[in-house]
């Protein structure tokens, strides 16, 4: 743990230097160096735990009311620490290049400091083992993220997105505060140890679990608590979007898993709810992503989708505990944690790709992009790797975790009793996969392929190594996890075992065969790579013998293609969205010779904002209470006095 805290200290110090030295030339290098060192140092204990060693937790007693501050790294924490700091390091390094052009306009050093703080807070969230440090880390994370989101606060949209984010996260935090208050009251202590030792009465247990779902659900961004997410992710600088989408929302998942492990399982109704919410988030997230025209908003909605997939895993695992099927629990949780890690990697990669595109072209509107593959080949390949991974296709990591989630749900079908119904979730997951494929084909095709749709897209040029290297590292991770499926699956299962509380031979009975099966994935993925590579070599050899001709696109007799004539993102998505009718969340504007679709968030604009307006209206309606006349104010006092005397007279005097 010393190494861990030392690492976090280094990260913070790096941030502080970046801030203090921001006018000097060495600021960036010092920042990069210290953060790299810090991440490396803090990752060592985490890697050790994942490798099977144990770390001794620490606890300081600060006296009431903040009580004991305990920190510990178990397998679950270790995985999340690895995600936070691994992806975090890439994001920070990317951020240094990404923010460099902003240097003239604003305090970049301050942003770097906040980023470091954000990282540290997240690392503390996943290692804290007592209420107060957890909540403090949680809120530091939420607030530093807020400050990072409003980086470009001169834009109205950004401010609005920030406010909505802040409101959502605050509600979530309060739900957690209530959860801990309730839990601690019943457990007689506020450390996680006390929680795990106590048995909650049924009513309190239900309340704790519901509040956990609300509080962590807001952070994770599951439908319908997701409404803050697209705006905030789109508004933030890209490396922050990467961190938020890739890492921050996962702390919600961490929270759910931690609560499950502390309570020792959840009742069926809760597990089914999680499963249903996962299905809902998955389908609606990807559907709404499909409707977006803004690259980053689209990616943000995909985070909701992937949170849905993760929740399908979490729900399956919880069902496994609830119905006493440890194998099911292991598989479900393993799918969830592996997908969490995977999503962190490829979603950060994608957001960085989007940021690179934004820096190169100055726009995020997909209908103004196109043809970037020619001038930005590296960015395109890296983005493509991210896309293939997120769609869950071999040979990359997304496939491995979706495979686990699928297996988990099918495993439910092998059981007896009501839990069997979970098997139908496989159909939902398949639909999600299909929609995601359609969506990322759209993104890749519209943004990078074809012809540029605007001047700015035509100007796009390849980014420097400061952008490419962090993305390449993440892409490499995607490939590595995809090809080395067996160890990844084994680690995920070990982590899942800590969540499920499974131990001993039962656990090995599940882990060994699955790890073996995962080598099948390696064969498929490796085969795919090798065969396509061979086919490509062979085809090029053939081409050398019969050289190809180069001409215009045929386009059914039209002369060539012009940028504006191409299929747009909106028209591409139209048939799919039409099939989902109103659920798809687009407003269609038709005019002779013109067709526009405007995506909007169903929950935000149909539910949240109207509710808020109604509340504001109610508040407005009682304003006349404070209408300025002194006599009326005095009447209030008299009225209160009389009412109280009446109370005394009627009830209290006896």
């Amino acid at each position, binding site marked *: 743990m010393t190494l861990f805290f030392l690492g976090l200290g280094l990260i913070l110090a790096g941030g502080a230097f970046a801030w203090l030295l921001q006018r000097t030339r060495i600021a960036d290098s010092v920042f990069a160096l210290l953060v790299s060192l810090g991440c490396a140092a803090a990752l060592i204990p985490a890697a050790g735990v994942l490798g099977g060693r144990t770390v001794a937790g620490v606890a300081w007693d600060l*006296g009431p009311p903040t009580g004991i501050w305990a920190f510990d790294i178990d397998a679950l924490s270790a995985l999340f620490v690895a995600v936070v700091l691994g992806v975090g390091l890439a994001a920070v390094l990317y951020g240094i290049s990404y923010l460099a052009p902003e240097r003239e306009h604003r305090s970049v050093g301050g942003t770097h400091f906040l980023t470091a703080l954000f990282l540290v807070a997240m690392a503390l969230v996943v290692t804290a083992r007592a209420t107060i440090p957890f*909540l403090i880390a949680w809120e*530091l994370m939420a607030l530093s993220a807020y400050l990072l989101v409003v980086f470009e606060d001169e834009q109205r949209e950004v401010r609005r997105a920030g406010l909505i984010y802040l*409101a959502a996260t605050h509600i979530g935090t309060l739900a957690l*505060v209530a959860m801990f208050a309730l839990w601690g009251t019943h457990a007689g202590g506020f450390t996680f140890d006390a929680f795990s030792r106590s048995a909650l009465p049924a009513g309190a247990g239900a309340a704790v679990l519901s509040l956990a779902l609300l509080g962590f659900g807001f952070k994770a961004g599951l439908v319908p608590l997701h409404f803050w997410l697209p705006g905030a992710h789109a508004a933030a600088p890209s490396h922050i979007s990467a961190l938020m989408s890739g890492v921050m929302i996962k702390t919600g998942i961490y929270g759910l898993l931690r609560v499950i492990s502390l309570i020792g399982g959840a009742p069926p109704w809760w597990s089914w709810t999680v499963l249903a919410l996962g299905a809902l988030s998955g389908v609606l997230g990807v559907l709404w992503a499909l409707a977006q025209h803004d690259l980053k908003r689209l990616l943000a909605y995909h985070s909701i989708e992937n949170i849905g997939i993760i929740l399908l895993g979490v729900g399956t695992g919880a069902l496994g505990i609830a119905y006493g099927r440890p194998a099911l629990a292991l598989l479900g949780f393993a799918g969830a944690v592996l997908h969490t890690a995977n999503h962190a990697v490829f979603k950060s990669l994608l957001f960085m790709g989007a940021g690179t595109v934004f820096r190169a072209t100055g726009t995020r509107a997909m209908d103004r992009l196109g043809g970037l593959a020619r001038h930005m080949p590296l960015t395109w390949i890296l983005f493509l790797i991210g896309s293939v991974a997120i769609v869950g296709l071999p040979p990359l990591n997304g496939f491995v975790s979706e495979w686990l989630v699928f297996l988990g749900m099918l495993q439910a079908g092998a059981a007896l009793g009501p839990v069997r119904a979970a098997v139908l979730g496989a159909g939902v997951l398949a639909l999600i996969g299909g929609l995601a494929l359609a969506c990322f084909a759209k993104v890749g095709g519209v943004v990078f392929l074809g012809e540029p749709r605007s001047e700015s897209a035509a100007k796009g040029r390849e980014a420097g190594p400061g952008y490419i290297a962090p993305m390449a590292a993440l892409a490499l991770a995607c490939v590595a996890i995809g090809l080395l499926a067996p160890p990844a699956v084994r680690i995920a299962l070990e982590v899942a075992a800590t969540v499920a509380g499974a131990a001993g031979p039962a656990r090995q009975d599940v882990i060994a065969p699955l790890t073996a099966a995962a080598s099948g994935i390696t064969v498929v993925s490796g085969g795919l790579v090798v065969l396509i590579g061979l086919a490509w070599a062979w085809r090029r050899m053939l081409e050398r013998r019969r050289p190809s001709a180069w001409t215009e696109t045929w386009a059914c007799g039209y002369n060539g293609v012009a940028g504006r004539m191409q299929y747009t993102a909106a028209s591409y998505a139209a048939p799919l969205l039409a099939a989902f009718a109103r659920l798809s969340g687009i407003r269609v504007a038709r005019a002779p010779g013109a067709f526009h679709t405007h995506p909007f968030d169903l929950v935000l604009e149909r539910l949240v904002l109207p509710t808020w307006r109604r509340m504001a209206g109610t*508040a*407005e309606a009682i304003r006349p209470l404070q209408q300025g006349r002194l006599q009326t104010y005095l009447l209030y006092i008299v009225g209160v*006095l009389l009412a109280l005397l009446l109370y005394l007279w009627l009830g*209290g*005097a006896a």
Partner: protein
Amino acid sequence: MLLLALVLLPALGALGAYLHRAEARRTAWLVAVAAIHLALVTLVWTTPPPAVFSGWIAVDALGLIVLTLTSLLFFVAAIYTVGYLRRESPRGGRAFVSCVLAFLASVSLVALSHHFAVLWIALEASTLAVAPLIFHRRDRRSLEAVWKYLVISSVAIALALLGTFFLSTAQANSAGTPLLLEDLVADAARLHPAWLKAAFILLLVGYGTKMGLAPMHTWKPDTYGEAPSVVGALMAGALTSAAFLGLARINEVTTAAGISAFTRPLLLFFGLFSIVVAAAFVIGQTDVKRLLAYSSVEHMGLLAVGLGLGGVGAYGATLHIVTNGLTKGLLFLVLGNVILVAGTTQAGAMHGLAKRLPISGGLLLLGLFAVTGSPPSGVFISEFAILRAAFAEGHVWVGVVLLILLVVIFLGLATTILKIVHGTPERREPRESGWLVLGPIGLAAGVILLGIYIPAPLQSALRQAAAALGGVAP
């Protein structure tokens, strides 16, 4: 003697300030008195002095907490005043410093008094000391504000006087010095319950009005809206705490007399009602000072709720006195900086504060998160304790309502304050004056420190105070 000095020093200081003709000397005088007062308070912590005037003036944990808060806030405010008076030189500056010092004297007396009549006199005196300060700007609006403040406060405090008389009537059959806190508590069983209850009601209305519990809070937005920011900080941080102390004192008596079943529901009701009203008026509030006033109403409500819940809630309420006081001081002073450069209290007319005044902007943001109870601010710790009490004492619905209202209030506050912090500023200001930011920085540090660690002496004081109020420390 030390206790008397705590009251007499600022009282004589007030007279002395009036004799100084040069403004610079007056402000130096002010800072000096504040510093000495703070030093004396520190002395009280290290060597608790004996009671004087046969126990009428004494120091106990609860009083000491309020006294320290007041002294600390006053010191910060005094430093701030140096910068403030440089920027905005008021007419009648002489009266300003004198009244501020008189205020310190009266609030110190409130904190030290263990006699209900003395308590009343001191609170009334503090009311009157503040009145000229509100009228500081001498325009129509401040005239209206001071008039409303005076009438409502005076009427309320008159009711409190009636309550004090009732209390003495209730004591007719019991032994001990009339209206002396210790004797009332010691012989509480023989107090006449009906008179005691009536006394509680009147004191609740009287001191509740001084605190600003809804619906008796009506003077608050007007007063805070028109008073100079320094005065706002002192009122919202110290004066309301002193008024709450009055309520806490009678609560000590009712708890000892065993009529909590009668008093606690009332405290809960007024507490929650205050928070409801605050929530309703915070939404869409465009005047930043009125916004803070309603926030103050909310926190007074929280204090009442904590007291009404008992148990850990009493501890939470006691801690909340401190955390709320520091936070309110921070917010008022920082907003004072904003108003000094913007020349208005309308949120719509200020934006880009984070770029215009980076330090104040950051502090305002911090204050916003602190006052809404985000960890790691001390306010969070105290609110958490109150929430725990709601669950532990079986008032789950109180906890639920509280949480929902806190969300609404957060939204209202955040909407307005973030509008000020973010955006593009009209122009940039030169470097911020140290006098104007030093105090708020100190307060912010204090608020955050209390959210992480509570020093041992304060901890034991809180424990004793909670026990006196019939509660327990967590």
